[in-house]
């Protein structure tokens, strides 16, 4: 008799499918619960997990198979995973909970993950099994094609979709004559309309690829090997190789035989469970809410959710993906998303430049982007897709829509929005000095798929973020047709899967009053969080609970903890508050004396009309503050900075309003306001606008009858002219609208989102509705602002009196 084992055994997870979706799910699972399962993986290909996106570079001879491996055999071993390659699972026994392979292996499971992917569809015509007829789906197909193309001669590709065109390109690069046969009137009809298709066809023909369009295949000709193709109209074409790329079909046979419900794919719910709750499925084999997906980003989203449930967190739901394809076929730029054909209740905005080979078409419904296609110049693709996903009202910039965001004034990179056209040495990320070449190399060699991964691996766009669009373009052009911009939901940071909004909602609903409490309640992966989430969560807590919420100094950036701006050499700068920029000889003398006494290395005016004492040691800060005897200017914070002003009626001969007085009132009314990002104001006394109010977060311009109020302007990284919010008569109204607008921004914008992108995201009309038209909601917003400000004290005065410790001095001085 065998002794009964009392050793608690680990749960067993069996994964059927060793491809990108299945392995991604395993990777996500290992991140969350590294020791929960004993994992066994079956894959019917002989390779470890490779990057299927790179089949075409391998076919075209630009890369070797080894370079496409994502998880080498060592990876499986390191994680204690049992891997069976070249082993096909023949049946699932749901009663005994085990799988059996064709070669007789048996593996019991507690949880089963199906990631069987999809197979190439083969046209049901006579002769489709002749040697020389191949599909284009895996490394074996590529190997066969490379072998056959070595013979030279002619190739016919049936199917003028994305894969078909890529194969045609690859075979052409290998020196074969290539003809693409397509049943529709133009190639890529799932991504392009007739006009775009014609442009594409012309460009491919210029590269030596021939097209036979509107042709239905009837039979493969040949006895021992393919020698031609006959069409339904009786015509024939000779060929040495025949590639079928007419589509893919989810591999559901195994699931079907096991009695799991299937339609086109294996049916799964929002937690990626099949009909049998012990069996999960992810990837191209699944059908979720009627949709199947072939792009990599949706598969990865599914993998993440499935892993979350396998890890017994049970928190996330998959709610489907919005996808776009941006493809690069033989150097041809192409992007399409959503409904690109248009029709009833839709409007089209188009631009066609046949000479340059540029075609752009955007489909609008009720002034919102519902789809579009871009050919020849796809620079605005990611932006357009963002507008589509966010449902942004584009009425304000419809006339320049097809020129893209750059037209509205882009950053220092304006005019360089064509990432694909740049040389390899071109600098993409100015902050971290990352070139295009090193980004592309990292995407290929490290197998990166998302913006986050590129940031982590190369640092590109990880600092100021102004090159994010360029990096997204490089991802798109390097990954080709498999790239689906960003996943729908962005996690706040790597410490959680929750989005900014979800964290915010939880703080409000569960009354979470400190960063520590929030991290614990929301199952943060690292109890200490990171440099991204700590300041964000601390801000959300202080905004939601201005009185009770704990302001955690260790969750503040150094500047906001030291109440001074850290400089490159570790010294600090001191900017005292000078309301409206109006000072006095006595105050100036005092500032000068303090600067002299402490040998302050530089005294300078800031961009916001204030005085800056630069090069101060941290130890000296409290004494300098005390001697200045002025409040903090908050020049260091995600907070109200200054209210810039012009002279106005008091002295200026053109002035029509007292802008200096209003600037002082605004600065006194809003000082000590923390915000998602820095907030700059300006007040100009006449339409000459000397205070530059139209590039400020909130700007006012005096006119004869009162004040025009502008919002969402920016003069920094990305210039944006402010939008006119409304016109009011009195200073009191200006103050109330300013408070209401900024309070709405504080409560709604994501941490580190300036007013300019926020206004664009939520739309000016939705702001007007709450801040201008509804007087009661305006009053309430302003009241909430006043309450929040009443909880804040001047940090310099607090430090001088000893109530606030900024740890100015070293902990100890150890003498020699």
């Amino acid at each position, binding site marked *: 008799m065998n002794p009964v084992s009392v050793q608690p055994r680990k749960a067993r997870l069996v994964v059927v499918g060793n491809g990108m979706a299945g392995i991604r799910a395993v990777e996500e699972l290992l991140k969350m619960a590294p020791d929960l399962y004993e994992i066994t993986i079956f894959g019917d290909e002989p390779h470890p997990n490779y990057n299927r996106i790179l089949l075409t570079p391998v076919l075209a001879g630009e890369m070797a198979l080894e370079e496409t491996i994502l998880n080498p055999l060592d990876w499986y071993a390191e994680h204690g995973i049992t891997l069976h390659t070249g082993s096909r699972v023949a049946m699932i026994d749901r009663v005994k909970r085990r799988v059996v392979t064709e070669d007789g292996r048996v593996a019991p499971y507690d949880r089963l993950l199906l990631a069987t992917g999809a197979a190439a569809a083969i046209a049901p015509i006579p002769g489709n099994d002749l040697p020389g007829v191949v599909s284009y789906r895996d490394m074996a197909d590529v190997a066969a094609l490379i072998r056959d193309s070595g013979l030279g001669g002619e190739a016919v590709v049936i199917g003028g979709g994305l894969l078909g065109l890529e194969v045609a390109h690859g075979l052409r690069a290998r020196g074969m004559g290539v003809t693409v046969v397509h049943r529709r009137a133009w190639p890529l009809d799932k991504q392009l309309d007739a006009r775009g298709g014609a442009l594409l066809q012309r460009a491919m023909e210029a590269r030596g690829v021939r097209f036979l369009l509107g042709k239905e295949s009837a039979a493969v000709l040949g006895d021992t090997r393919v020698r031609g193709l006959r069409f339904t109209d009786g015509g024939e074409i000779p060929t040495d190789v025949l590639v079928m790329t007419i589509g893919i079909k989810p591999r559901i046979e195994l699931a079907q035989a096991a009695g799991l419900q299937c339609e086109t794919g294996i049916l799964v719910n929002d937690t990626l469970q099949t009909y049998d709750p012990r069996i999960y499925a992810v990837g191209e084999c699944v059908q979720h809410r009627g949709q199947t997906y072939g792009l990599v980003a949706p598969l990865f989203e599914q993998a993440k959710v499935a892993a979350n449930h396998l890890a017994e967190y049970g928190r996330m739901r998959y709610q489907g993906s919005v996808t776009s394809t941006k493809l690069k076929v033989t150097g041809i730029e192409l992007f399409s998303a959503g409904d690109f054909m248009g029709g009833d209740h839709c409007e089209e905005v188009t631009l066609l430049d046949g000479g340059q080979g540029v075609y752009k078409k955007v489909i609008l419904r009720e002034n919102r982007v519902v789809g579009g296609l871009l050919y020849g110049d796809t620079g605005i693709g990611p932006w357009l897709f963002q507008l589509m996903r966010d449902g942004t009202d584009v009425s304000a910039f419809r006339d320049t829509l097809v020129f893209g965001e750059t037209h509205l004034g882009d950053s220092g990179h304006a005019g360089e929005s064509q990432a694909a056209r740049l040389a390899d040495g071109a600098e993409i990320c100015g902050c971290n000095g990352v070139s295009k070449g090193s980004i592309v190399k990292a995407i290929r060699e490290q197998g990166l798929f998302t913006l986050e991964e590129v940031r*982590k*691996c*190369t*640092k590109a766009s*990880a*600092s100021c973020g102004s090159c994010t669009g360029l990096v997204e373009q490089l991802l798109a052009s390097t990954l080709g047709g498999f790239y689906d911009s960003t996943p729908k939901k962005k996690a706040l940071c790597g410490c959680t899967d929750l989005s900014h909004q979800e964290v915010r909602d939880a703080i409000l609903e569960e009354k979470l009053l400190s960063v520590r409490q929030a991290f614990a309640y929301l199952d943060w992966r*690292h*109890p*200490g*969080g*990171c*440099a991204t989430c*700590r300041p964000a969560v601390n801000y959300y807590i202080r905004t939601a609970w201005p009185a009770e919420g704990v302001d955690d*100094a*260790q*969750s503040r*950036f*150094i500047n906001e*903890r*030291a109440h001074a701006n*850290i400089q*490159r*050499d*570790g010294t600090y700068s001191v900017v005292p508050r000078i309301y409206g920029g109006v000072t006095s000889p006595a105050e100036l003398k005092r500032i000068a004396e303090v600067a002299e006494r402490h040998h302050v290395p530089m005294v300078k005016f800031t961009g916001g009309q204030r005085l800056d004492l630069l090069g101060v040691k941290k130890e000296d800060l409290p004494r300098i503050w005390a001697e200045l005897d002025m409040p903090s200017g908050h020049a260091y914070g995600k907070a109200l900075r200054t209210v810039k002003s012009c002279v106005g009626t008091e002295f200026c001969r053109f002035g029509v309003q007292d802008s200096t007085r209003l600037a002082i009132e605004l600065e006194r009314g809003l000082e000590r306001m923390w915000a998602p990002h820095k907030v700059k104001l300006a007040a100009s006394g006449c339409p000459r606008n000397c205070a530059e109010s139209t590039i400020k977060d909130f700007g006012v311009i005096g006119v004869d009858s009162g004040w025009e109020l502008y919002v969402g302007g920016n003069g920094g990284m990305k210039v944006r002219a402010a939008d006119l919010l409304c016109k009011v008569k009195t200073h009191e109204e200006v103050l109330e609208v300013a408070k209401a607008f900024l309070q709405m921004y504080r409560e709604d914008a994501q941490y580190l989102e300036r007013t300019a992108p926020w206004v664009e995201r939520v739309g000016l009309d939705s702001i007007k509705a709450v801040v201008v038209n509804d007087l009661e909601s305006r009053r309430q917003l302003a009241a909430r602002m006043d309450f929040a400000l009443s909880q804040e004290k001047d940090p310099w005065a607090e430090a001088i009196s000893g109530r606030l410790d900024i*740890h100015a001095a*070293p*902990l*100890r*001085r*150890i*003498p*020699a």
Partner: protein
Amino acid sequence: MEWLALGSIEEIPALGGRYVETPQGQIALLRNEKDEIFAVRNRCPHRGGPLSEGFVSGHTVFCPLHNWQIDLEKGEAMAPDHGCVKTFPVRIEDQQVWLGLEEEAP
């Protein structure tokens, strides 16, 4: 090795740091959520940022200047960055923090 008493662990803010002036320059003392204390030279290998002012989480400090992440156990910058920072031994007895300093090479 000379062991120097620095004071109570409570003088170092949790998830943050302080620094001490020594004959060998500034040394950052960083405290994580488990009340472990790490001591490293107070200069980020990137541009010399004061690590004592960074965010601490687990075994990582995030430099306040450009967000480099430094592994406090190994004293090495985490990928994709390269660089290292000298680490020093720390002992905690009865809530008192002790820093170990080697005699400086002559």
